């Protein structure tokens, strides 16, 4: 009993500290994990076993691929090209850049996408003589919606996919349609919101048309190699279920292939692209959650949740969607999803493993869409606002949340309708 209280207290404390950013989140989860080991809540053997290496290597592989590709200027090329395709018309640029952000986010990490696309968006807005703030907010929201669509788009999906054994194709079939509808509705809402505000002169549009997108490419050879490897990797992901390969295998294969193709074989630099802080955050998190599973805390909570929903799968699913959405708007959705995974697995043991598939999709849609809820709901928002601030544009919590919360409610309503029509009608 002492162990249970201690474990729960450490876990809740870690969650609170992460949410309020009182300490670096990697350090706090590792501290929690170390205390679990030192106090014997978990043996080292169990702790190491609890780490989902499929998730870890999927992240490492993708980080290496993205780290190498971004050097080529490929993403800047796409962004500048999009601005020209939009003929310098601001509302079209805003929407096109956001749709591109969503598509890239579906394949790559959201934060990386924001780090690449948002500076270009700011530049374009300034060249147009407009405030870049709507562009920055729009990029972040689109990135979170886009990330929802695939297994590799957002960390919650990576966690869910690996834990429940879903393939890339499973996500495309079950989650991507909802994300697609959400993206279309988001584009319509932003069009209506900003169409009147974003008006510029002919001369300013002409400035955009003068951009030479070819000059954004820093390394043509690398660009071709990067595009090929990314396409190949995505093809690999869509087929991994067919070949009974795990996603991490595909990601690492892609990373190794790209490393071979780069001429200099500078391994140290490639591995510097890996965000080791994030990797160890996941490792610490897996251990913390495993502690609660070992002590039966998760089983207890699962039983309680079933009591509340009276075992009605449809009701459980919609409730889970909204709880996840609201929760993810305020706390980091990664530890939230990591905690929910064993809980849902436990429910699955009682209701049948495949019967509960909709619960996983609800968790995914809720956690990912919920990230838009507030400025602190997702890393993409925080990073976007950070870039804005460093460039001299302050995006307040409320300024972001005004649009973010609106989009979260809209997307959660869409997701609820989607879930109901698709799985429970």
């Amino acid at each position, binding site marked *: 009993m002492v162990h249970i209280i201690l474990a729960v207290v450490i876990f809740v404390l870690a969650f609170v500290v992460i949410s309020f950013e009182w300490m670096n989140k990697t350090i706090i989860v590792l501290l929690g994990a170390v205390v679990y080991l030192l106090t014997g809540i978990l043996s080292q053997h169990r702790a190491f076993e609890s780490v989902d290496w499929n998730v870890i290597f999927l992240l490492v592989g993708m980080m290496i691929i993205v780290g190498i590709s971004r050097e080529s200027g490929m993403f800047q090329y796409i962004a500048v090209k999009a601005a020209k395709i939009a003929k310098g018309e601001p509302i079209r640029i805003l929407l096109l850049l956001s749709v591109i952000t969503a598509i890239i986010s579906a394949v790559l990490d959201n934060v990386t996408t924001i780090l690449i696309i948002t500076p270009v968006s700011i530049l374009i807005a300034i060249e147009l003589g407009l405030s870049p703030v709507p562009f920055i907010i729009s990029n972040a929201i689109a990135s979170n919606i886009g990330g929802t669509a695939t297994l590799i788009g957002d960390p919650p999906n990576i966690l869910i996919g690996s834990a429940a054994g879903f393939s890339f194709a499973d996500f495309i079939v079950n989650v991507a349609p909802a994300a697609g509808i959400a993206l279309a509705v988001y584009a319509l809402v932003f069009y209506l919101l900003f169409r009147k505000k974003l008006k510029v002169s002919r001369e300013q549009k002409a*400035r955009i048309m*003068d*951009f*030479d997108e070819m000059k954004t490419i*820093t390394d043509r050879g690398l660009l071709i190699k990067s595009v090929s490897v990314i396409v190949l990797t995505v093809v690999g992901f869509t087929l991994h279920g067919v070949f009974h390969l795990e996603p991490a295998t595909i990601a690492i294969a892609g990373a190794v292939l790209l490393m071979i193709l780069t001429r200099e074989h500078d391994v140290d630099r490639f591995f510097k692209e890996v965000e080791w802080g994030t990797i160890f955050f996941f490792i610490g998190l897996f251990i913390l959650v495993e502690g609660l599973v070992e002590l039966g805390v998760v089983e207890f909570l699962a039983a309680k949740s079933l009591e509340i929903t009276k075992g009605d799968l449809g009701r459980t699913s919609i409730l889970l969607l909204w709880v996840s959405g609201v929760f993810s708007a305020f706390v980091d959705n990664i530890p939230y999803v990591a905690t929910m995974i064993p809980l849902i697995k436990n429910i699955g043991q009682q209701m049948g493993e495949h019967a509960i598939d909709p619960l996983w999709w609800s968790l995914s849609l809720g956690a990912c869409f919920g990230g838009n809820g507030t400025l602190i709901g997702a890393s993409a928002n925080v990073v976007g606002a950070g870039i804005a601030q460093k*460039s001299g544009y302050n995006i307040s919590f409320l300024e972001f949340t005004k649009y973010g919360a609106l989009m979260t409610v809209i997307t959660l309503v869409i997701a609820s309708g989607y879930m109901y029509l698709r799985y429970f009608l």
Partner: protein
Amino acid sequence: MKLISILDRDCIYTQSPVTTKEEAIDLVLHQFAARYKVKQQTTEMKHAILEREKLGGTLLENGMAVPHARLEGFNDLFIGIVIPQNPVTDESGAVITSFIVFLTTKSGTSLYLKTLAAFARVGMNTALYSRFLSSPDRDAVIETLKDLYVEKELTVKDIMSPEVLSVKPGQTIKDLINLLYKHRISYVPVVNDGKELIGEVNINDLLKIGIPNYAVMIGKLDFLSHFEPFEELLNNEDKIPVSHIMRKADSTLLPGTTIIETALLMTKFNRRHLPVVENGKIVGVVSFMDLLSKVLRA
């Protein structure tokens, strides 16, 4: 060791009637040839000294000239002092009040540099130097120099620029740009009213205001056909205080810091200037040009 222990009393000429640099060099070389057996002819040595003179930079403060040459096969340090009756004007129009002629080994630098630094200190000390110049005879020169020591090791205070231009954190960027432009310098320390070092700033820090952060993140801007450079900087230069762009001075030197340590800090942190601090107060600045001109080509 004492500076006068290195000097040769017989090679000091006071109130000398020489009227050109060459005459002064001849005088010293003549003495040198009488004392040392070296394979070079006097004319060759003179040629070597004059060749080095052409590179310039051998005139120290207050008109102390230090013509010198490094000789093959000579393994000692020879110093000749010539104080002309009347200041000598050289071909470039510079006024020379004394000649300290050095002949030294091809590769060894340390004793030579330390001795040179000791003489440089004489030249910088106006009171001491005027007594040195007005010495009636050799013994008076020895007497004037008797309290000077050649340091065991050459240190920062021997090569730093002691007259430090600085800015205060509350001054504007405009003041800073004007100061750097007027003196053609690229670095100044930032000090408070008590001359205590609180930061530093260079031209790069200034340029960074001109490049917005989003541009830094894009990393490449040549796809733009036109981008007004430094618009923001020039519009706001009288509004932005120096404190906004200054950096913390994280590596500083002491006057006693060795040259090798200085060179190490400069190369390790890719620095061009380092502030010299004593008891928290700025006392000088060492630039990498000081290392070039006062050590590598001294």
